[in-house]
């Protein structure tokens, strides 16, 4: 490495505009070979745009890209692949119906005669997976793999193509804590074997644990770069957001009163006959936050659906203020004061092609004063939407824009405004800060705690241990559709919790 080029990748003054929006404004970036380099910034800061330019998805309007010290023009992903770049996208680029091997060789298939040489391909995949410690069954259908395994397939795909420089876009967003630990050891192993790794993220703890160097972006610009050993989380957060940010949730001791929600022996079977929920019982009192920890797919989604009235349990009861609400549907529950922040906001929380004003009345559309006898009360809706957008800091504050055009954080703020505005007595928040910026996370947490202090009972489901532990007054752990235990968020360690979440 002594006489090699100084940087594996360099971007010089790269600018990219989408219409009036400057997504990348004279971005400079230099990544040393054989290092792990983190690019951090909030959603919309331009990290992904910069990487998509590097990978040839977008064409830069201005600026230069140097690979291994030479100026290169990258017209498309195939050019990038030829130059030794590999990208692992946040949303995996995998074909579910194909096998692991087929996915890996796609676009670079070894042939024997006219047919694909599947035996050779399979052997090569096994070789790579052994060499880099990426264990995965080469014959499995990708759609049946866990998210962590799918990610390994993505990494293998880039290695199969001979990537020397790996770009990972938000690689930990969808992983369990154990999977994150495994990924990190894989990435460190890749670095040991001489690969250069760029990781895009907004999770500061991970940046500090993994990377050697950090570049911070905000509003399309590079704000600064520093060595990880000189960085602190609060300093990085300030650079990302542009102001001081509270990383820890600040809240008073809970003052729980009488039970609001009580769930008794709820069981539910999936349509395929598998157990979704088994004998789940718990209560949540006024003025407390119950956090539910668990690896995704262990019944949390179904539990929230049962509580929101979207699914009927096969047995058991749900009581709100002592009243049996098991047979009631979502709308009736809503009018009794149940607010629901759905896990998948793009699918269940919003109509993406409707504007903010229309989205702000979902679920209330048939109630007065939103609706009159026949017609919607446009004046009221507009006034209310304007107020929500202001109170909940939705940006840009334009209620005539379609929801699709907003960042995840701002979409979530609108949903929270809509749900919290009616002062609910029970809040069901599923993954309330998934894919949301640090600044917006702080805001959402504050709003949840405000309502708790005003006497609401809150159920929070989150895949983020940090969120579970900092937000929850009590924490229960789900595994395999059952509640496997309750822990005290003040004393439990992440390791203990991680073990319970995996059935240990």
């Amino acid at each position, binding site marked *: 490495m002594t006489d090699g080029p100084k940087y594996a990748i360099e971007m010089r003054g790269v600018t990219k505009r989408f219409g009036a929006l400057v997504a990348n404004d004279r971005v400079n970036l230099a990544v040393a070979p054989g290092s792990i380099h983190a690019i951090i910034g909030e959603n919309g800061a331009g990290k992904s745009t910069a990487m998509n330019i590097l990978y040839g998805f977008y064409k830069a309007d201005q600026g230069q890209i140097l690979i291994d010290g030479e100026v290169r023009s990258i017209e498309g*992903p195939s050019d990038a692949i030829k130059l030794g770049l590999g990208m692992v996208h946040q949303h995996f*680029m995998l*074909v579910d*119906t*194909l096998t692991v091997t087929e996915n890996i060789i*796609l*676009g670079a*298939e070894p042939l024997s005669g006219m*047919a*694909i040489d599947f035996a050779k391909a399979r052997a090569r995949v096994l070789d790579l997976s052994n060499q880099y410690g990426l264990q995965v069954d080469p014959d499995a259908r990708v759609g049946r793999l866990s998210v962590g395994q799918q990610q390994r397939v993505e990494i293998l795909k880039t290695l199969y193509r001979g990537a020397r420089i790996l770009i990972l876009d938000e690689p930990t967003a969808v992983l369990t804590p154990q999977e994150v630990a495994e990924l990190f050891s894989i990435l460190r192993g890749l670095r040991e074997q001489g690969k250069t790794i760029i990781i895009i993220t907004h999770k500061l703890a991970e940046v500090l644990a993994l990377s050697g160097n950090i570049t911070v972006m905000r509003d399309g610009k590079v704000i600064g770069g520093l060595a990880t050993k000189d960085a602190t989380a609060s300093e990085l957060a300030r650079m990302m957001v542009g102001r001081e940010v509270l990383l820890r949730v600040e809240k008073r001791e809970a003052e729980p009163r009488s039970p609001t929600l009580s769930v008794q022996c709820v069981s539910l079977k999936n349509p395929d006959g598998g157990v979704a929920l088994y004998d789940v019982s718990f209560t949540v009192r006024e003025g407390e936050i119950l956090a539910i920890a668990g690896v995704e797919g262990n019944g949390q989604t179904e539990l929230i659906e049962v509580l929101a009235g979207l699914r009927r349990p096969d047995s058991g009861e749900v009581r709100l203020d002592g009243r049996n609400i098991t047979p009631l549907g979502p709308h009736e529950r809503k009018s009794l004061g149940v607010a629901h922040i759905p896990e998948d906001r793009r699918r269940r929380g919003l109509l993406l092609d409707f504007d903010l004003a229309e989205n702000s009345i979902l679920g209330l559309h048939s109630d007065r004063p939103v609706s009159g006898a026949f017609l919607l009360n446009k004046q009221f809706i507009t006034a209310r939407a304007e107020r929500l957008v202001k109170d909940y800091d939705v940006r840009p504050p334009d209620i005539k824009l379609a929801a699709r055009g907003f960042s995840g954080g701002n979409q979530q703020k609108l949903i929270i405004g809509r749900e919290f505005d009616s002062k609910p007595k029970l809040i069901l928040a599923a993954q309330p800060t998934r894919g949301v910026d640090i600044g917006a996370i702080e805001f959402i947490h504050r709003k949840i705690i405000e309502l708790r202090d005003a006497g609401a009972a809150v159920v929070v489901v989150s895949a983020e241990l940090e969120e579970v532990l900092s937000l929850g007054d009590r924490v229960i752990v789900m595994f395999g559709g059952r509640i496997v235990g309750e822990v005290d968020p003040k004393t439990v360690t992440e390791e203990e919790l991680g073990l319970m979440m995996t059935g240990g």
Partner: protein
Amino acid sequence: METLTSIINLSLLASMVRISTPLILASLGGLYSERGGVINIALEGIMLSGAFTAAAVTALYHNPWIGLIAAAGAGLAVSFIHAVASIRFRANQVVVGAAINILFLGVPPLMSGALFQSTGSTPQLPREQTLPDWNIPLIGQVPVLNQLFSGHKPIVFFALAMVPVTYYVLFRTRFGLRLRAVGENPEAADTAGISVERMRYAGVLLSGLLAGIGGAYLSIGQNSLFTRNMTAGRGFIALAALIFGKWHPVGAFLACLFFGGAEAISIRMQGVVAIPVQFIQIIPYVLTLVVLAGFIGRATPPRAIGQPYVKEK
């Protein structure tokens, strides 16, 4: 009992194979298109274009092989319109297909008026100007098989051969893997350096080629002229067979035999059973309806089917 044996016998199977031939070709054609992510309801129109072109060109040049090649070319040309509209210009694929179907209800009568001063039909071809009957050397000696597989038009053998060929292409070759990837997750294929557009063009053009040949079988194989709307919904039945067969070449083939068999039976029942002929003729269509409504609940189409691929977010 006598009635039954006069309906169900070996020659019924032979006629099932014949009747299934255009269905098999159109269905396999549709498979290439739809596995690549482009819905092709234009199979009916493409078959009509093939059937008309085959008969018209044969009538003009007195050689069925030229007619056959012209039919394949016509299928390609019509599917190229489909491809350009639905891939290049990202038009709604169902609307494009429907437009082509309507267009080719009208084009053949117009052309036959111009070429042959007729109102929708082409001139009757002499027998020696239709495609010849072929016998397979060895099979002619085998008792049962010779009744099933001898004396068919070349297109019948071509269709039967296309089933394993399509299986091989789809599941063993680079082209097939890429085509399937493009139909399931075009973004993934794109990031792997595969041209989504090119693969989809190939899929749609192949559908045109095969459905065009399937159409030719109707006019210069089974019959000796083109008549107005002579496909009579076969393109749609082929589409139904594709869905019934779960977008798998063997599945689609078996589904085509099923529908072809139903039609073969309904033809034989006419005049033998004391049921008005109109009722017997609707059997294949009713079966299609029943099968599609009732039996295919779990068929999963290619995931990206019907969605134009847009690169920029």
